[in-house]
């Protein structure tokens, strides 16, 4: 019988072979011809972790760190590992109640599953950290995780240094080739923004193997493909933090700005804007709240007025008007104008503060006495220059001069958001006057820094640099050098190392202008302001503006010989330049040049910083806001009182709804109405149930 069906043995063997061939065919398909599975496997199992390097530190001119990193700690929790810990003790340690504890654990589970670490409490205070660090071993599942945050040790220079923040989707779209990812931080303002690429360093990438629940199982291929994080490079700025602090102090209770530049290099020594804020308030856990507050403030503390404030320069413009005329050879320093207290040549009179004969007998005197008539005349001569066919062409030439001086153009400082202020174009006047029918008479107040002319404090201080340098300037900048500078960094710094020659006027003639400005400080409008030990040159300005009281403007440089500091100060709506802006400038120069202040000056700093020059409108806004807050608080108090009044005798008044998110601390005294276990958040219950089920699936 066995021989009977022997052939069937062959059939069976062939069937076996065919089936195995099919299996091998499918294996060839899967393992050799389908590359997608490898990619899918990598997506499954390899976790790419970005290692953030420390951001670079920013130093001032004396190598003091003014923006650095500090370590703060987050309390992390892996909910699945916390079983059986002493919840009460732990909650007491943190100063929360157990209901809050459970709520946070639930939130962590919802957000990030129970097997992965989530933040339990972010950015612990130092005391809390100390307390936890001692006891954390008792609470498995909890750990402390380092986090590097930015800190500003001097609490100053907020507008210059800027801040970092998390990138948003629009940022990611804009810079999609630069490797940012959701959750990354980037410089959003100030130096943090401009030098983002230098400060951020190079992010490293570590690859880990992760399991089906996202837990890390160790490094992938022993770190063969990992890259090391390279720390950000440091910035060395020209800021003198003491001068900066002084500037900010002097501008307290005022709205305005002060900029001090080293004319020799264009390096900015101090750049203050007021009102300002403590930059440390924009780091750490309260950032969001504080940022919103600053954003809504009507005095706009986030606005860096030094580069964004546009003010009519007023009389501080006058030396520049002189320079243009001199360069065009329209006048000589000996040119005089017979001013009798006003300028009548264009019909309507332009008043002048002085009427004495000969106060405008030459350029030096005209500057010293700030003669309006003289500079209106000089401006008109420039516009009506017979070299050019018409006043429009003459005006364009004058405008070109202005742009060369850095007026009406962006200077190119290494801060984002600089404005170019305004030297109006002919189009603007054509519009004003219905075509090119205007002449120098129509726009004559441009000659004394009014009309449509505006400038930023930075531009004004740059003008001082040009005069101090007798004809050239370096683009104002904050960063002098980078750590480990390479050839690639010329992008950042080369433009600050080129000299801009603007006029072709002999040094001797510059000296005349400087003499005129020195006269201002001896017997002119700044006669009462001194810089102990130094001769200095200045020009005051009291700029009319449509917003209210005159802006006080003061520009100066010192010492007269071999100048080392050029300053421009604007105090909004305060009045005379010599009175309200002058002291700021001279005290800054004294501090910078002498490295200290005299006792007398210290006293003046104290008194001056207490003077309140904030316009009434803004004060009223603050008052209103405060009163709204007070009213709200009162209302709340009242409500609370009422509620307390009601609750004892309203036990019959049972609430039907209960929201554990909103009222996590409510005691359940209405149990009969809500039979479900309220102190146990429903989601947690569901989760443990699921867990149990899962456990029971496999024997």
């Amino acid at each position, binding site marked *: 019988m066995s021989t009977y069906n022997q052939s069937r043995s062959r059939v069976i063997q062939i069937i076996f072979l065919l089936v195995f061939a099919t*299996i091998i065919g499918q294996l060839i398909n899967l393992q*050799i011809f389908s590359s997608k599975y490898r990619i899918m496997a990598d997506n499954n199992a390899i976790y790419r972790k970005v290692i953030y390097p420390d951001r670079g530190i920013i130093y001032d001119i004396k190598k003091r760190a003014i923006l650095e990193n500090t370590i703060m700690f987050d309390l992390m929790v892996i909910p699945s590992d916390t079983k059986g810990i002493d919840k009460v003790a732990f909650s007491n340690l943190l100063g929360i109640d157990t209901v809050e504890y459970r709520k946070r654990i639930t939130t962590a589970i919802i957000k990030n599953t129970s097997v992965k670490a989530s933040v339990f409490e972010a950015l612990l205070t130092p005391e809390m950290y100390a307390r936890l660090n001692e006891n954390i071993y008792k609470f498995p599942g909890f750990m402390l995780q380092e986090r590097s945050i930015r800190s500003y040790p001097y609490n100053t220079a907020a507008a210059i240094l800027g801040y970092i923040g998390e990138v948003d989707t629009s940022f990611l779209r804009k810079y999609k080739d630069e490797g940012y990812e959701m959750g990354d931080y980037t410089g959003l303002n100030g130096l943090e923004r401009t030098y983002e690429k230098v400060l951020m360093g190079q992010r490293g990438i570590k690859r880990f193997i992760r399991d089906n629940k996202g837990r890390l199982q160790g490094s992938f291929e022993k770190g063969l493909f990992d890259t090391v994080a390279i720390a950000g490079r440091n910035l060395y700025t020209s800021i003198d933090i003491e001068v900066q602090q002084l500037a900010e102090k002097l501008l307290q209770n005022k709205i305005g700005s002060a900029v001090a530049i080293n004319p020799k290099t264009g390096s900015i020594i101090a750049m203050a804007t007021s009102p300002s804020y403590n930059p440390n308030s924009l780091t750490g856990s309260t950032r969001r709240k504080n940022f919103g507050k600053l954003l809504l403030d009507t005095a706009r503390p986030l606005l860096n007025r030094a580069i964004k404030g546009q003010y009519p320069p007023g009389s501080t413009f006058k030396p520049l008007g002189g320079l243009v005329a001199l360069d065009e050879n329209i006048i000589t320093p000996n040119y005089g104008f017979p001013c009798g207290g006003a300028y009548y040549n264009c019909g309507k009179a332009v008043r002048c503060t002085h009427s004495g004969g000969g106060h405008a007998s030459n350029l030096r005197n005209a500057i010293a006495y700030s003669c309006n008539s003289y500079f209106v005349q000089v401006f008109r001569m420039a516009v009506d220059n017979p070299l050019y066919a018409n006043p429009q062409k003459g005006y364009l030439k004058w405008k070109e001069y202005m742009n060369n001086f850095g007026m009406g153009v962006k200077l190119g400082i290494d801060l984002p958001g600089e404005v170019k202020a305004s030297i109006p174009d002919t189009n603007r006047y054509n519009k004003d006057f219905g075509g090119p029918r205007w002449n120098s008479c129509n726009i004559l107040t441009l000659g004394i820094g009014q009309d449509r002319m505006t400038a930023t404090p930075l531009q004004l201080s740059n003008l001082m640099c040009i005069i101090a340098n007798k004809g050239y300037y370096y683009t104002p900048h904050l960063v002098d050098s980078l750590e480990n500078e390479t050839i690639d960094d010329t992008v950042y710094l080369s433009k600050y190392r080129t000299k801009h020659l603007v006029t072709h006027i002999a040094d001797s003639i510059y000296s005349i202008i400087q003499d005129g400005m020195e006269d201002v400080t001896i017997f002119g409008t700044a006669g009462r302001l001194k810089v102990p030990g130094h001769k200095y040159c200045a020009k005051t300005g009291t700029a009319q503006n449509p917003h209210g009281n005159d802006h006080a403007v003061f520009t100066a440089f010192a010492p007269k010989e071999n100048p080392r500091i050029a300053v421009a100060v604007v105090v909004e709506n305060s009045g005379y330049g010599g009175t309200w802006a002058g002291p700021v400038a001279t005290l800054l120069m004294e501090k910078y040049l002498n490295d200290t202040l005299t006792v007398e000056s210290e006293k003046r700093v104290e008194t001056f910083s207490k003077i309140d020059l904030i316009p009434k409108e803004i004060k009223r806004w603050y008052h209103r806001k405060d009163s709204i807050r007070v009213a709200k608080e009162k209302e709340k108090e009242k409500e609370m009182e009422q509620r307390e009044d009601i609750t004892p005798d309203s036990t019959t008044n049972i609430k039907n709804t209960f929201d554990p998110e909103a009222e996590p601390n409510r005691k359940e005294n209405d149990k009969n109405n809500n039979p479900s276990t309220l102190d146990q958040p429903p989601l947690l219950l569901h989760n443990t149930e699921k867990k149990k089920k899962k456990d029971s699936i496999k024997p």
Partner: protein
Amino acid sequence: MSIQHNSMRVSQKTDTLIIWLYAILVTIGICCIFMVEYKPGMNVMQNILGGTTNFSKQTLFAGVCVIVATFIMLSDSKLFTAFANLFYAFGIVLMLATFVLGKNINGSKSWIPLGGGFNLQPAELCKIFVSLALAKYLSRQETDFSKLKSQIIGAAIAMVPAILSIAQQETGLALVYSAFFIVMYREGLPSTILITGISVIILVVATLLLEPNTLAIILTLIAAIIIFILRRQIKRQKNILTIIVTLWLVCVSIQRFAVPYFFDNVLKCYQSTRVYSMVGKDYDCTKNKHASNNTSKAVRKPDDYNVRQSKIAIGSGGVIGKGYLKGTQTRGKYVPEQSTDFIFTSIGEAFGFVGSFIFLLLYLLLLLRIIRLAERQRSTFSRVYAYSVVSILFFHITVNICMTIGLFPIIGIPLPLISYGGSSLLTFTILIFIMLRLDADRQMVLR
């Protein structure tokens, strides 16, 4: 003295190649289980001694198996012929007892608790008993397997435990008993049954793959073509036409009614979903009778996570694999049930196509060797038994590996000698070693 003599004879005539293959496969199995459980920094020695991990338990089981195998080799081969029917009866009683004593594990009530954490699955053991009983029945002198009656009795011997298994919600194990048709085919079951079986399988797969109307048109076309080709014969013999039309009707009704009925009413929702997901389709559970019974359960999403992960693990192995203990999918525990049903994925990932190919060759060698061994038996009992062993092994291997590479719906049956699991390893050990014991006495005619 007699025992010693006996054992000497046995050791001389034992097929050493199969023992080697057995040992190699069991070792590969333990290594694979170790690979699945491996974590960097794990203290291997402590784990082996502690016996807490699966691979250490499997090592322990392998030790038990060595002892059992030794006992079998030392026993008398007549024992198995003598007790075959008794064993079978015992097995059926055990399976019936499961309904009373049964313990619910994984939703199937097929386990008898033995105490001490050990559970016995009688359906697993019954494979041995059925093999013996079938061998016994077919080797009877009065059995003429060319007769329909004998064929039905033979099929009944195999099918009784299968039906009991289905009643215990163990479809996978029940399917294994269909392997005995291979044995019966070898012993003279008409090949029309084989052809019919294959045709039905093709029809069912086609039903799943194609639109009902398209398939109906195709079937009609095939019928028309056959009629056209056979038009001369049909003229002579009218009943050929009747046969063709009847066949066509049967095919269409299977495709139209039987298959949907089977998936909607016989199979459970998850089983239908698995079958449909294998051909890349979603099964609508709301049509399923079982699903509507317990509406509390949410309607399942297409349940292809297992197969997807399994294919990812195997596919990512590439040609030469990622290396032992270096498989990311294995280490990340992405494949569910990887130490039991999906153990092949760890080989596929770690050793790639080359490794899988060699591994399959080992299995093929084992299977062909057993067939060779079967054919050299003098007694029908030994031959039928050996064929039973090879059929069961073949069925397990094919279904298990096809399931991991997405050629077969997921059925929870283990990979012989490799998968983690004491009862599975023990069952296959007993199966193989009884065969070896019988083979050692191949000169004898056992009945």
